[in-house]
Every structure is written in structure tokens, then in C-alpha cells.
């Protein structure tokens, strides 16, 4: 029984490592130029900058906030694709712009943008 549990645990750890490895390789494969091009096309830089807070937080600050969190990618994808409320420096809230891609709803482009932000 103990042997069976130990075997199961090994498999779980192996799967977690594999998942972590995939996650790491996904981050390593970020196409920064494509991410920035998508950000430009969507006017993201009107409210965000890499280093500086504007109406929206600096991307580096976003990366810092989500560093080490398992759901970071999912959470940010939801934030930029659902139109959920975002809080502004003056305290008011309004819907965050929904990032559009060409072709429409290309999740790989959205994911790449989020991964680029998280990689900063």
C-alpha cells in the first residue's frame, strides 16, 4: 500500500515538474516584439507603461504582483478579455478595454501578451 502511494506521489511530482517545465518554456518563448505590437495596436500604452504608472499600473508592477502565483496568466487573460472593472488612480472604476486581435479572438496572441507582461 505504502509502495503504491509512494509510486502515485512520484507520478504527481513528475507531472507537476513537467507542468512547471512547460510553463517555464512558455515564458521563455515569449515573442516580445509581437506582444508590444499587439499592445500598440490596442492603445495599451495610452494607459500603461513598462516602468511607469499612468492611469494603469506599470507592467513591471503587474508582473511583480503576480510573481509566483499559479493563476497569474489566467487572471490577467480574464482581466484583458472580459471587460471587467479596473480601478483608476482617482478611485473611479470603469471597464477595462477588451484587447482585440487579428484574426479575432486569437488566444495565442493574448497569451503571448500576458506572458510578456509577466516576464518583465
Amino acid at each position: 500500500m505504502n509502495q503504491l502511494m509512494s509510486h502515485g506521489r512520484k507520478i504527481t511530482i513528475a507531472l507537476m515538474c513537467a507542468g512547471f517545465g512547460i510553463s517555464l518554456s512558455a515564458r521563455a518563448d515569449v515573442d516580445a516584439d509581437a506582444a508590444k505590437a499587439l499592445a500598440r495596436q490596442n492603445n495599451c500604452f495610452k494607459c500603461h507603461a513598462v516602468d511607469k504608472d499612468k492611469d494603469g499600473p506599470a507592467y513591471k508592477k503587474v508582473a511583480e504582483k503576480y510573481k509566483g502565483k499559479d493563476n497569474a496568466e489566467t487572471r490577467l487573460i480574464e482581466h484583458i478579455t472580459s471587460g471587467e472593472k479596473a480601478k483608476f488612480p482617482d478611485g473611479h472604476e470603469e471597464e477595462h478595454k477588451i484587447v482585440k486581435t487579428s484574426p479575432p479572438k486569437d488566444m495565442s496572441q493574448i497569451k503571448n501578451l500576458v506572458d510578456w507582461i509577466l516576464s518583465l
Partner: protein
Amino acid sequence: MSKQNPGALRRFWRFLRRPSAKFALLTLLVVGFFGGIIFWGGFNTGMEATNQLEFCISCHEMRDYVYKEYQQTIHYSNRTGVRAICSDCHVPHAWIPKIIRKIQASQEVWGKITGYIDTPEKFEAHRMAMATKEWARMKAANSQECRNCHSFDAMSGDVQKQSVYKKHMAAKDAGQTCIDCHKGIAHHLPKEYRDPNEEE
């Protein structure tokens, strides 16, 4: 000698200048009036035909590249059902600027003949130069083609998002014009383009 046997051009000019002994002045006026309407109407109808979306996308350079990009934007499909076609943004509405733009467009015909942008690769290679030229034209015209439909004064702070309204009013106070901020709204931005708001 030349007076006795004038050239064809000179004879034609004399014919034009000689008062008619055959047709009544009223006939000449009526024929001239309706002839003018037909000529002017034909000219303007022809010119307007070149403003139609169908005309613009009759070339594969437009149909296969920029038209597909535009179809994914709000100026093609939106909540209110108002569509801005190519000429709404790229051809002035006022008659004289429109004629000037049409004359300039003859250069584009030459580009078509010589295959300047006849492949996606060539199009991308020239996209920045073409976009820069068009942005400069729009800027020089104070974004008149945008302002045919949009104006700062018609923007409502109650309806527009607060952050957007604030930016628009700041732009108005700073004397900025639409194209200063709204580039690439109906087409992809050139890969070489950098947003001035962007910080590396």
C-alpha cells in the same frame, strides 16, 4: 502667305470665335446649358464612382490586404450600424481638396501598373512609408475626414468613459487633432511604428 493658308489649329480657333450666322442665340444657350449639365453630371458621377468601396477593393492590393484588416474594425462593423468606407477617411469631402486628392491618386494608378505593392511582402515593406504619408496628410488637414463625423464638442462626459473623456478634453486643450493619437484604427500599424506613449 500664312494669312492666306492658316494652319488647322488657327482655323479651328477662328471658327470658335466667329459669331454663328446659322443658330439662334437661344438655341446656343439651351444646348450649352444642357450640355454643361450632362458634362458636369457625368464628371461628378464618374468621380463619385471612384469613391465607392467596390471601386477601392477592385484591386487585389486593397481587397486582400487592408480591406481584410478594416473588416475587423469598428469602422466596418459596430453597434450603431454606421459604416465608414475607404473614401470617408481617405478622400476629402470638399470639392477642391477632393479634386487635388484625386489628381494625387494618379500616382497610385502608376503604382498599380508597376506592381509597387502587389505582394503581401511588398505591401509590408512599404506600409510604414505609406502610412506615414497618409498620417501627414490627415494631420495637415486637421483630421478633417475624422471630424466629418466626430468632434470634441459633441463628446459627452456622461456617455464616454471617464478616462477617455479626460484624455479627449486634454487633447482639445493642447490643440491636438484626431490622428495624433488614433493611428492604425482601421488597419494594422506598421511594424516599425512606435507609440510615443511607449516607454522601453
